Each structure stands twice: as C-alpha cells, then as structure tokens.
C-alpha cells in the first residue's frame, strides 16, 4: 500500500501561542533560522549553530512525554522545522507580558516578567546578555520541573548554556530560586490543554527554485507507512532528535532530498521495565531514559549524566545514538556490558541482533536496507553482578568522551565467573576487551586481579590519537578504569554518581581513599 496522505501539507506549529502555517521554506530550515528570519523573533540567539552553546534554547511542549505533556528546553539550531509539526514552541519573547516590542535602552523595568526573568535580573545573571535568552528558557523548563531537588541537578539542567562572560554563579543562584516553582499561570494552563498525544502526520514537499533542490519531509503515523516510504524513496533518511543529522545540515550544508521523522509512531516511544527486563524504544528521549534508570539501572544513568546537555538529552533518542554507530557513542558500551539485544524491523518482520554484532565497523551497523532499529531489550543485571560505567572527558558537560567504559563482572563465592568489559573510544566500533575479560574470569575478585588484568588492555586495543586524547592516554586511562572498578564497586555493586561533581569519574569522591 502506498503511503496515503494529502499531496501536500503545510507545517503547522504554534509559536508563543500563535498558530503558524509554513508552506514555503526548505524542510532543512532549522527552527532557529525560522524564528529569527520569517517569524521575526530575534530574541533567540545564535552562538554556534551546532548544539554546543545553548544560546538558541527554546522550549517545546512534548505531548507524548512519559507521564504527560511537559516542557522541554531544546537547541533550536539543530531542530529541523518540520519536526515541530503540531507542536507548541515558546521563545523568550513569550515570557513577559509585554514581550515582543522593542523598548530601546530604557524600554523596560520589568513589570509583567515571568518569575524566571525576575530571578535572573535580581541575581545579576547577565553581563553582555547574549547567552541570557537561552539561559532563561532552560530556567523556564526548570521552573516547571518537579524533580530538581538537589544542587547537582540544577547544574545538570543548566549545563547546556555556555556563558563566556561566565555568569554561572548568579545563574545557578537564580535557578535555585525558581526550580520547581511551577507557578499557576498561563503556561501551566497551556500545558494542561495539550492532549495526551497530538502526534500529527505530515507530508511536506518543498519545490526547489532558483538553484535550490526539491525536498520532501514525511511524518508517517505507522511503521507500514514508513516502509512504503522506504520502498518508494531509497534515498530516504530517518531523523528524530536531529542532534546528529542536524549537524550535517548546519555544518556541511546538506539539503537532504527525502527525510522521514519517526516521532509519530507510538510503538517506538515505549519504555518498559517489567519482570526483570527492559524494553527501550528507538525514539525514547535520553532525558527520559536517564530519569527511568536513575535508581533502577545506575550504569546507564551514570553514562547519561554527562552525556551532552539537558537540551541535547531532551531531543536526542536512543535510536539516533545507536544507529549513527559512532565509535564514541556513549550508550553502546553500557548495552554491550549488560548483554542487550537490538531489535530491528523491516516489512518482512523483526530480527534480533545481539548488541555485540550490531556495530559492524566504523559508523556502520547491522541494519539492512529497508530496516530500522525499533527497540533494545536487556535483562536487569543479576544479583551477583558488579557494574560501573565511566565517561572520561575534559569537561563535565557536552564533551564527547575520550574513553567511555561500562564494566561488569559476575562474582560467585569471591571468584569472577563472567566479565563483560565494554569500551567506547578505543577502537573503530564500541567493543569489549576480551583479553582483559579472559584474564579476570576464574580469578578471585580482588584489586590484585584487576591490576593484573588491566595490563592486558594493550592486547585488546590499539586506540587512535586525536585531539580528544592520545593513544597512550586512552590506553592508560582504560587500564586505570579496570583498576578502579574494584574499588568503585566495593561499597555498592552498581554505584551511582556522587552528588557533587568531583574530579573523580569514580564513585566515592572521597579523598581519603587510600591505597597502601
């Protein structure tokens, strides 16, 4: 069956409560370009156009979030406009009652400001002010979140907003004032009005003109519609969060001829944990996965804490992370260590692929033409397992890992019975350290065994050197993480992260750890 739908739809979205119909822009136009251009809203800033600075942060209502509609702070510079079809977007201009008009240098003393604006002014959170609109929108999400109950969570919420004048201290103070405030206001009311799922389908065609190519963008509502599209358009590219694909647009000027978003396919959004098994859908957002695993699956949550930024995690999906098959993708090592199964599907049905066989070579996966990745399944680690995950990078936020590791051993009667030690950043694909594993299995679970096994890391990997880390550094750190695993799982079999960021990527964060 051919994909049925009108010949051409317009992208329909709400910006600051106002309905907008977009017919005549390329579907690879970013939301930021649209806001600052046709929409005439220059309050939202561009600092990098690559997701790295947060100046472009806006808030989108996600009608399909677990637990009901919610605000999400996102980077508008990476989102392609059609991804906003059927959605509500809020920009900084929406917040104060006298929003849009320009008041000159003395145009405002603040009446009608939203509490987040009041708080940031009071804390002197702006110097040059260029980062401020983005900061405000991240604070806006914080204001309506109910779970920001610890200082580190505030830093987490705000870590996607760089401020070169470095007003982080006052920004933190202001965020503390408003986090979880949830005022009973027009924004809360707007949220309540959004239906549980307004997933809208779309077929959007853009006629190229004057040298620009023709482009199409679809949002199919079902998998079978998607397969129709895949058949009809072999060049079709999938996109969901666009935190990866969006970079091809903004950095390389790609104008994809045919794109399809998976956002409206409900079954891909499912995140379930029952009977000791996890099933994580392809379009589950990483922010939601982090929430779901915070207590229940600490190694996953540890990896996600320092993954990208809040804005990135609000957009990025599990499928996007695994299917771009980057050697430094952070989820893969966790899935390898936890013995996950990747489920892929095409018109002819589903296929189950062990995680270890999914990453075939540099940036390529076991997906065949006409297939997509639909979910990943994994068992809870058994009671005798010790698992710890590490993401080693220079900066705490938005830093791609030099080395990522998820290390698991099963210990019975003081002896290691199984080991799954998975690393990212050490080879062309995420991979297990088989030699180190072999050196551990059968050995007593001790620091000495870890030390000895760590020596084998060179048998497993010959990492590369790049600006994130030299081969020597990567190998040294990887070995040291194997050494650290014993200590870091000594108090708790699956440690979470300490609340306060410390220099340690390890668990305890206490300087009194003593090694005689």
């Amino acid at each position, binding site marked *: 069956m051919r994909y049925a739908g009108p010949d051409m739809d317009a992208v329909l979205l709400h910006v600051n409560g106002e309905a907008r119909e977009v017919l005549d822009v390329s579907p690879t136009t970013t939301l930021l370009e649209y806001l600052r251009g046709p929409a005439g809203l220059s309050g939202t800033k561009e600092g990098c156009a690559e997701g790295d600075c947060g100046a472009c942060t806006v808030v989108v209502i996600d009608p399909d979030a677990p637990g009901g509609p919610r605000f999400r702070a996102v980077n508008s510079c990476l989102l392609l406009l059609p991804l906003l079809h059927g959605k509500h977007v809020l920009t900084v201009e929406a917040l104060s009652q006298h929003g849009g008009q320009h008041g000159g*240098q003395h145009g405002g003393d603040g009446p009608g400001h939203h509490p987040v604006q009041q708080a940031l002014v009071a804390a002197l959170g702006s110097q040059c002010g260029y980062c401020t609109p983005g900061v405000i929108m991240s604070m806006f999400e914080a204001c309506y979140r109910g779970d920001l109950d610890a200082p580190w969570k505030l830093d987490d919420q705000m870590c996607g907003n760089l401020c070169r004048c470095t007003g982080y201290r006052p920004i933190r103070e202001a965020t503390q004032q408003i986090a979880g405030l949830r005022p009973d206001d027009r924004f809360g009311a707007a949220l309540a009005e959004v239906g549980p799922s307004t997933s809208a389908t779309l077929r959007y065609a853009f006629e190229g003109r004057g040298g620009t190519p023709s482009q199409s963008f679809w949002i199919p509502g079902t998998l079978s519609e998607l397969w129709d599209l895949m058949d009809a358009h072999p060049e079709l590219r999938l996109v969901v969060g666009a935190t990866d694909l969006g970079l091809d647009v903004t950095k390389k000027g790609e104008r994809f001829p045919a794109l399809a978003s998976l956002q409206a396919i409900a079954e891909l959004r499912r995140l379930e944990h029952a009977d000791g098994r996890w099933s994580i859908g392809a379009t589950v957002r990483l922010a939601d996965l982090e929430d779901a695993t915070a207590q229940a699956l600490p190694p996953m949550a540890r990896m996600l804490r320092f993954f990208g930024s809040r804005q990135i995690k609000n957009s990025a999906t599990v499928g996007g992370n695994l299917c771009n098959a980057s050697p430094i993708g952070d989820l893969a090592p966790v899935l390898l260590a936890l013995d996950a199964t990747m489920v892929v599907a095409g018109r002819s049905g589903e296929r189950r692929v062990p995680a270890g066989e999914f990453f075939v070579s540099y940036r390529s996966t076991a997906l065949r033409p006409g297939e997509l990745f639909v979910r990943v399944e994994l068992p809870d680690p058994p009671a005798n397992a010790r698992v710890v995950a590490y993401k080693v990078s220079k900066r705490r936020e938005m830093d791609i890992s030099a080395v990522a590791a998820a290390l698991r051993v099963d210990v019975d009667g003081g002896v290691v019975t199984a080991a799954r030690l998975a690393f990212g950043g050490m080879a062309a694909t995420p991979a297990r350290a088989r030699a180190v594993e072999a050196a551990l299995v059968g050995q007593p679970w001790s620091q000495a065994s870890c030390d000895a096994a760590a020596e084998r890391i060179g048998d497993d990997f010959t990492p590369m050197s790049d600006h994130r880390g030299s081969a020597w550094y990567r190998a040294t750190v990887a070995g040291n993480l194997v050494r650290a695993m014993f200590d870091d799982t000594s108090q708790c079999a699956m440690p979470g992260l300490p609340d306060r960021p410390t220099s340690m990527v390890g668990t305890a964060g206490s300087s009194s750890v003593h090694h005689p």
Partner: protein
Amino acid sequence: MADRKQTLRLGFEGHLRKVDVTLPATEATPWDADSKLEIVGTEVPRLDGHLKVSGRAKYTFDVALPGMLWAAVLRSPHPAARIESIDVSKAEGQPGVKAVLAVAKPGDTLRFAGQDVAAVAAERPEQARDALALIEVRYTPLPFVVDTEGAMRDKAPRVHEAPITERRTEGDEPGKAKAGGMQGNVRALPPNERGNVDKALRESDVVHEATYVTQVQTHSALETHGVLVRWDGDQSMTVWASTQGIFSVRDEMAEVFGLAPSKVRVITEYLGGGFGAKFGASAPGSRLGFIAGELSRLARAPVKLMCDRHEEHVCTGNRPDSRQAVALGGRRGKLHAIDVVAHGTAGIGTGAGVGRNAFSLYTRCPNARVRAHDVFTNGGPGTAMRAPGHPQGAFALELALDELAAKMGVDPLKLRLDHDEHPLRSMQLRQGAERFGWDELRKRSAQLRSRNTRVRKGVGVASSLWGDFGRANAAVATCSVLRDGTIELKNGVQDIGGGIPTVIAQVGAEVFARPLSTIRVRYGDSDYGPSVGSGGSTTTSSVTPAVRNACEQARVALQELAAKQLKVPAGEVRWDGDGTAHGGGGSITFGQLCKKIDGEAIVATATRPATYGHEPMAFPGSKFYQIAGAQFAEVEVDTWTGVVRATRVLAVHDCGRVMNPLTLRSQINGGVIQGTSYALMEERVLDGDLGRMLNPNLESYKILGARDVPEIEVMLTEVHTGANNTGAVGIGEPATVPTAAAIACAVYDALGVPVRSLPITPAKVLEALGMIPGRPA
C-alpha cells in the same frame, strides 16, 4: 584658569594619608577616603537586566533593515598560497545574489588558512554561502609553518618577506616601545633588564631552570564578530557593529572609504562580548568593515556580515601562545635572579609578549631580565585578549617560583611576600592566606601526597598586576537636566557587559541626590559623544570622571537657578537628600526647580583630565596606579584518569573605589572562570600537515561550563588612589591574570610534580605522573 591644589585622604584601610594633588580648575573635587557617598558604591542591579531577560536587547546580529542583504566570505583553504587568478563571474548570476567582490587580487600572497579571498552579498544568507562555491580561484600553494618551534628553525619558510607594521588596539597595554628587527620568523620585543642577571645566576646557591608552555586561546565571545553597513548617500554611512570600540570602528570606516569621521555613525546598542578581539571595523584577520561597506556600495542596499563560529575561531584574533625558558636563582632563601626568554606566536600578527609579571611583580629581586620574541607562523593573527601577555607570563613565573621554593625548602607564599613591594598586594596576600586556610591546606596536600592517595588536593597562589590606564580627554560626557526633572547622561560608550551605563547612572544620581529612576543614560552610539573603547580596563576610569564633571557643572548652573528662585547668593543654597534646594528660609523641590529652567534643559559637557595620582604605588615606569590582586586556588586531581577540577578560588582584588559591588563581583567571577577555562580546557589545535584549525567550534574547543565552575569567593580591598575624581580604576583584566597560574601551582602542590604546559589536560597529568599513577612503583 589656573590649576588648583587639593589635599586628599588616600591609600587603603590602615594606610590612609593626606596627599596633595594638583587639579585643573574645572575639575570636580575628587571623591576620596573621607567622601560619604549614598549611591556610588552600593549594590545597584544592572539597569538593562530587564531588556536582556526578555530578549528585547538588540545585538548587531539582530538588527534587520528593509532590503538588507547578507554577506558571506570565501576564505583561503591554504595556510600559504599565491593567488594566480580569481573569477567571480559565475557567482554573479546566482539566485538572490546582488554583489560579488574579489577581496584578494591575482599575485597576492595569502598567509593563513581563513584569510579573505572574495565575498558575496545576497538576499538570504544561504544564497550567499552557496554562491561562494562558484567563485573560481587558482592558488599556488606555498611552503608554510604553523608551529612555533618549527617557525624558529633556520630553514623554516618565511611567513613575512618584509618587516610588518604592528597592529595595536585599545586592548593593548599602553606604552610599549618599538620592537627590534626580524631574524627569520623571529622578531625581538624590547627587553627589560635590571641588575646583572648572568652574574646573579652564577652567585645563586639554587638555580631552577625549566621551560613553560602556554597554548593559543581564542576569545570565543558568544556573539561572533559582525557589522551591518548602510550608506546614507555617497558621503555618509551608518554602521551597526558588534564592537568594543565604537569610535575605532568609526575611524577605520572613515579612513577606508575616505569619509569624514563625522559622517560615519556607529551604533552598538548591545554586544555579546569581545574580550579584546573587537576593536576597529576589521577583525584582526578579516576586513569585515571594508567587505560589508564595499558590497553595500556595489549593491546599493544595506549589507550585514556576521561571522560564523568557525570564522570566529580562525580569523578574529586569539591570545598568542608562549614557550618561556625560565631561570630563577635563589640565594640564602631569597629570590636573587629572574631570567625569562620567551618565544610565542601571534600567527601572522604581532604581540606575543608575556606581560609584566616576571619583570615587575617581585621587584625586591635585584636582578631580572625578560627577553620576549614574536615568532611568525601561518596562523590567524593574535590580538589583545583580556590582559594581553599577563596570564602567560604569570603562569611561567609563578609555577617556576613554586618549584624554586620547593628546592629551597621555603613556603611559596612567604617567598612572594618577601619580594613584593606593593603594600596593598602584601596585605591581600596575608589576609587572603588567612581566609583561605593556606597553612592548613598545604599540610593536607602534603599528607595526601605522602599517603599516595588516588585523589589528591592541592593549593596555589599567584599575583596580579595591571595598571590604571584611564585616559585623559578621551571621553566627553554630556549632562542635560530636562524641564521634566529627568537627568539625561550621554556618552557614546558601548557596554560590553561590564555595566558602565549603570555606573554612569549612579554617578548622576549621586551628584544630584536624585533617585536612579530619574536618570536616563544614552550610550552605544557615536552620536552621543566621544568615548573610549572597552579595553585595558579603562572604561569606568575614563568615562565616570567625565560624567561627574558634566554633572557637577550642570549642578552649578542649577544651583544658580535655585539661588535666583530663593533670592539668595548661590553660595548659600543647600541641597538635601532628595534634591530639594534650601536657602534664605525657603525651599524649592527639584521638580519645581526644573520647571523654571529657561529653554529645554541645562546642558553641560565635560571630559576628564590626565591621571593625577597613584597612591600607594605606581605601575612600573609610569604615573599610573598599579592595580594589585592575588588569587588562591584549590584543585582536586584524580591520579588515575588525570582529570583536574578547580574546586575553590579566593580572589582578592582592588579596583580603586568600588563603584558597584554587584557589577564588580561579576567581573571578578568572570575573570576567574575564564582563567580556569584557560588553565584546564581551552586550546586551539592547528594541523601541522594541512595548516588548518582542527577544532574551530565549541564542541572540541572547550570553554568552561556550569558544572566545572569552582566555588569563588571575592574579597575586595578598596583603595583611594587619587587617580581621578571618582576614584574608579579597572578590574576586567586584573581578575583573570593570576587564575591559571594559581591553578597550575595548586596542581603542582597536589602531585608533587609540575605540569609545565597549559592547558593542564588529563593526559598531561598522567604523563607527569608516569605510567601507573597513584600507586607505589
């Protein structure tokens, strides 16, 4: 009128004394230690905060004019090449394209990857970018060198054939002498020497010698460089620019296009940071103003040219790197000789000096010599960046000092106190050490080291010196007292984020004893009268005294008006706290009085004279006050991964009179955080084979984010210098000078081995420790 003498009470807490100064007759009596001020010195929140949080503050990037075109620039892909031919014709007919410009000409030599080649203006930004691809350029690649050491070798390709002229901006430290001649790619900067260093090193009982390396840092302001040019007829133009020097843009545009400066109006309502890179109409490595202006002239439409993040890293300036060979001599527990030979590259540009720290900080050391050199490489030009040279110089000197202290077995803090002559800085060091818990923390570091723990902690201290370079006659301020009681203060200064409009308003409110809500400040436009650039930490000290003089003069006129109304001699009028005038038993409120103004307003215009004092200590070789500061840092190091966190910084600073503690603290926080970022993360990486930057983005060029910010405590030590009538001196730069040095010293304290290269990356930490860190061999 003749000059007059005035006695002021100057100095700092516990060290105040009476000093006579000579003032021009028109100069307001300076505020000194005895002045009781009501509004200046209080915590007034930034006046423009509300505009910024609501997205209404307009930046150059945001300005849109009817019919405006967007420009894009074709940049050299080669680090060195000769242009054989350049053909722009194919770009000309492209959709939306309105003007095309060959910026380089056949025969021109290009010297870095990113240099201007050609430009296009089109209706949409993407049309301009697309059209660039159709410009045909034939290059002959030439030999090049991008690394500093390579460029110093005998056979290295020559970057410049002829001696080059120095590009200096208001961001540079004033008063540098001329540099020497070129030898290959190396050019000596003017040396400094006192005593006899060679002899002193021979006499020393301990000598510490090592080389210290710093990286190239880019300014990375969040708003990139950009200009928007609109011709208003053939002989005048309006320019919107993201600049920290409105008048430097005006002058350059006037010169480039042969216009009278008065015919060029420059507007910078707001700008998203600059840090030294945004002076003039050109960026240091790209002729932005010329390109936009010329395209606009050709297309007969306004043209906007905004750099993208890549261009911002590559061609808009940077802090040069350095390799500093340091030799310190110690004799009987004292510092006896300082010798620094520095080489650094500002790419194709100049200015890789290493600041004043080594020569001018520890002046009780009798023998000191600093010889610095510019090394030319095929990289984007360096330019002034927040305290040019100083953070580099501080890092090498202070870490070397700690290493010498360790060899001599003396406490590093004591070694500093023994050789620092600035009375205020000595006090800062002592009070800071106490508040920081220096002695206890040093003991803790030693314990952790001796127990060989995985996680170590360490502390370090470093000093800051900078000068009060407030400029005479550069800023002209206008004060108008309007009939409706509003006091309007005008000056064409731009607000880079330091909050100068707020401080201007405070000065007006102080002089007239009026509420801040009645003061209106006009700024960010060359039409509002000459002003200084936001560089060298001179804005507040150059502008506020001019504003005060204008206000005082308007107030004299107002006082005469009040005297007439109250029918008393002007000398008998008394003002109370809300601006009401009293005299002869009667009174008249400020509002009533203003209604009596003849015409629209009382208007007074004034500037500020040359600096007249520098209590308690001058910047070496000058009449300017030497600004003092010291910072203490604490770090935590994971010896297994090499990851370093700065956990706490205590910043002790003076900035003359504290005009507004809020904006002041935010400057200090900013300086500390930028210094932390420089110490631990930032580094421009050039590919030696291709000669291009490998990390021209904010993804792999890392600047510090919210999670990595240390706890920062700020201690202010106010000083009355007698420099000018408000007593303001600068803080923007002093606050970033010592941070990286203090952090490097703290890492040394934590590990017991130094990391002599910035940034202190995890890899360098592990390398310094040896293969398997934190465990007995």
